[in-house]
């Protein structure tokens, strides 16, 4: 959004609030990759007081998509009469051997779309092809794909299917808090995920683990205000769920979107790249929608996925255990030009953001 004249004054006032409240070393985790990008985009880290660390979390659905899902999408794109459609974010993510972008250059049929609806339209325009949509996303995105699958069913489009790679956030946040090595004092909660799921899922984190949670928007002033609210809670010894982003997030979220998601998808275990399997954090099509599950529609033989290469620390970085520049490969073997792990490739991966913004 265009900067306004009085934004700077408001930012300075929020920074002053933050400085007043931070009296000891504090680590706040921004769960969502879009927050990581926004913080870098506005250079907000350079305005945080000494002792306040903003740590990037695993909320980058691209970073946490396992190698195997990328390999599978590539293999499907190489099949005859198949078009793989995807959000732009996935194009350069490294699989075991290649990327969707490289596969396209080698002749595979891969198309970037802005909306899953565009993929459905493509399927309707090309009935002799099978159109696969790479279904990555957290709770902000998942309902849009579920709604598209509903439309496909009611329109009788039988050449449209989805490769499920959905993940959910709150359980992952709990796993982070429980992990003995992470020390997170507060969560900057993902504003748009919360616009869908509502504020209730964060209550156990605050109550059980004493970790304040502030639902935060994405403009620079939103983020500064969210941080101010968190450090003020910590200074007061509070641990509550607060909503900084009231203009977009009603407490109940979007029940219709949740209902559509539940109608089409059901929970399953999910593999988080670099982290491992976190039970119940994935979603896959319900039996009534099994015909739209690309895995069954287009079986492909895959060699075993490559483990993260030696030295790749994406897992630790995503859990906030390590700063990107503490990884032995950062800036040497692993750069945006030749990314080893997904954190460097994804536009909002912690390492890519760190590389771009220099930890600013």
């Amino acid at each position, binding site marked *: 959004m*265009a900067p306004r004249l009085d934004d700077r004054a408001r930012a300075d006032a929020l920074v002053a609030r933050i400085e007043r409240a931070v009296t000891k070393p504090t680590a706040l985790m921004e769960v969502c990759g*879009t927050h990581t990008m926004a913080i870098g985009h506005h250079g907000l880290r350079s305005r945080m007081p000494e002792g306040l660390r903003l740590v990037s979390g695993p909320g980058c659905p691209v970073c946490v998509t396992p190698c195997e899902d990328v390999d599978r999408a590539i293999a499907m794109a190489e099949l005859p009469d198949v078009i793989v459609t995807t959000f732009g974010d996935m194009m350069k993510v490294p699989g075991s051997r290649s990327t969707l972008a490289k596969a396209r250059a080698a002749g595979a049929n891969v198309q970037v779309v802005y909306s899953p609806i565009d993929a459905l339209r493509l399927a309707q325009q090309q009935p002799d092809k099978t159109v696969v949509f790479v279904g990555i*996303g957290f709770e902000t995105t998942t*309902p849009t794909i579920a709604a598209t699958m509903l439309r496909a069913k009611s329109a009788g489009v039988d050449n449209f299917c989805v490769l499920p790679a959905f993940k959910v956030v709150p359980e992952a946040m709990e796993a982070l808090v429980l992990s003995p090595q992470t020390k997170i004092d507060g969560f900057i909660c993902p504003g*748009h*995920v919360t*616009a869908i799921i509502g504020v209730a899922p964060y209550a156990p984190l605050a109550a059980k683990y004493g970790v304040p949670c502030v639902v935060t928007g994405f403009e620079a002033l939103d983020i500064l205000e969210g941080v101010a609210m968190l450090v003020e809670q910590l200074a007061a010894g509070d641990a509550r769920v607060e909503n900084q982003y009231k203009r977009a997030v009603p407490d109940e979220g979007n029940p*219709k979107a949740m209902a559509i998601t539940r109608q089409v998808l059901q929970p399953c275990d999910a593999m988080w790249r670099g982290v491992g399997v976190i039970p119940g954090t994935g979603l896959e099509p319900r039996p009534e929608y099994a015909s739209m599950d690309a895995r069954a529609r287009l079986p492909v033989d895959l060699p075993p996925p490559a483990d993260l290469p030696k030295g790749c620390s994406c897992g630790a970085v995503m859990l906030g255990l390590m700063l990107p520049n503490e990884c032995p490969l950062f800036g040497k073997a692993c750069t945006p030009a030749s990314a080893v792990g997904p954190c460097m490739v994804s536009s909002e991966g912690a390492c890519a953001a760190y590389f771009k913004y220099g930890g600013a």
Partner: protein
Amino acid sequence: MCLAVPGKVMELNGSMGRCDFGGVERELCMDLLPEVETGSWVLAHAGFAIQLLDEEEAKKTLDLFQEWADFEAENTLGPTPIEAANASEAGGGSDGPPA
């Protein structure tokens, strides 16, 4: 995971809506917001409206809507005479074949 942008619903056509994002327009699917009305402000993500924006709350925090009005009023980046001429040429098709 969360790139979503505010826009104003200009026209509804069944469950699709034409939305203005401040000089550019796109159609959004309203399946996730059945209660949306023309004139509503919504958050757009991946071609869908995912949530309604509360105008009152928005005014309190960022003066989001006032921002667009201000920007319009003080916009000094209007087309140069040459660009304006090009724009009307392009519209008339003399720089390109008929659509």
